[in-house]
């Protein structure tokens, strides 16, 4: 288990696939992380397997394989037992305080209330995360000092 911090984020497989295939809020949300090297995308192999399978189904195996190579370089891996929900388990085992998902079974107030009882985890649609992400305030909290601005090209 890793100590939770708000700079550690899990994007469930739907958001990872939508970042690639749809763009919109998913890409905006993940661009915040790509722009800032002091944030961490946490993901288990099982989570990436699911996203890769979605990309394979909706696009092409070669695109899915290329995406997997790139995201493998970026994410911080985390292990969890087989059968656990890959998004939730990546978050609570990987010390993430944010889980991005389209799944209203996870983002509902009821699910949020029950999750909050166990872990410090906020489950949000990527649109909400993209709108509320405040890099200056987060930088002060997790790194300290004055926010220097983005330090990474989100398209590399």
């Amino acid at each position, binding site marked *: 288990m890793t100590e939770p911090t708000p700079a550690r984020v899990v994007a*469930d*497989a*739907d958001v990872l*696939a*939508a970042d*690639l*295939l*749809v*763009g*919109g809020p*998913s*890409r905006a949300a993940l661009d915040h992380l*790509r722009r800032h090297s002091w944030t961490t995308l946490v993901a288990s192999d099982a989570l990436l397997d*699911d996203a890769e*399978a*979605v990309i394979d*189904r*909706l*696009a*092409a195996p070669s*695109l899915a394989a*290329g*995406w997997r*190579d*790139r995201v493998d370089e970026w994410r911080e891996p985390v292990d969890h037992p087989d059968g656990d929900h890959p998004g939730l388990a990546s978050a609570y085992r990987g010390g993430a305080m944010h889980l991005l998902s*389209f*799944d209203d079974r996870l983002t509902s107030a009821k699910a949020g209330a029950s999750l909050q009882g166990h872990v410090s985890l906020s489950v949000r649609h990527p649109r909400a995360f993209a709108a509320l992400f405040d890099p200056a305030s987060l930088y002060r909290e997790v790194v300290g000092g004055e926010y220097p601005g983005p330090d990474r090209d*989100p*398209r*590399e």
Partner: protein
Amino acid sequence: VTWDDLYERAAAFEASEDDVSAALNAVRGDDD
């Protein structure tokens, strides 16, 4: 490979958030 390269290749495929959600439900076996 860069994200730019991947997005360029992905633009040839049209998908919506609903398509992605349905595909993930199928992958995880929880279509309900």
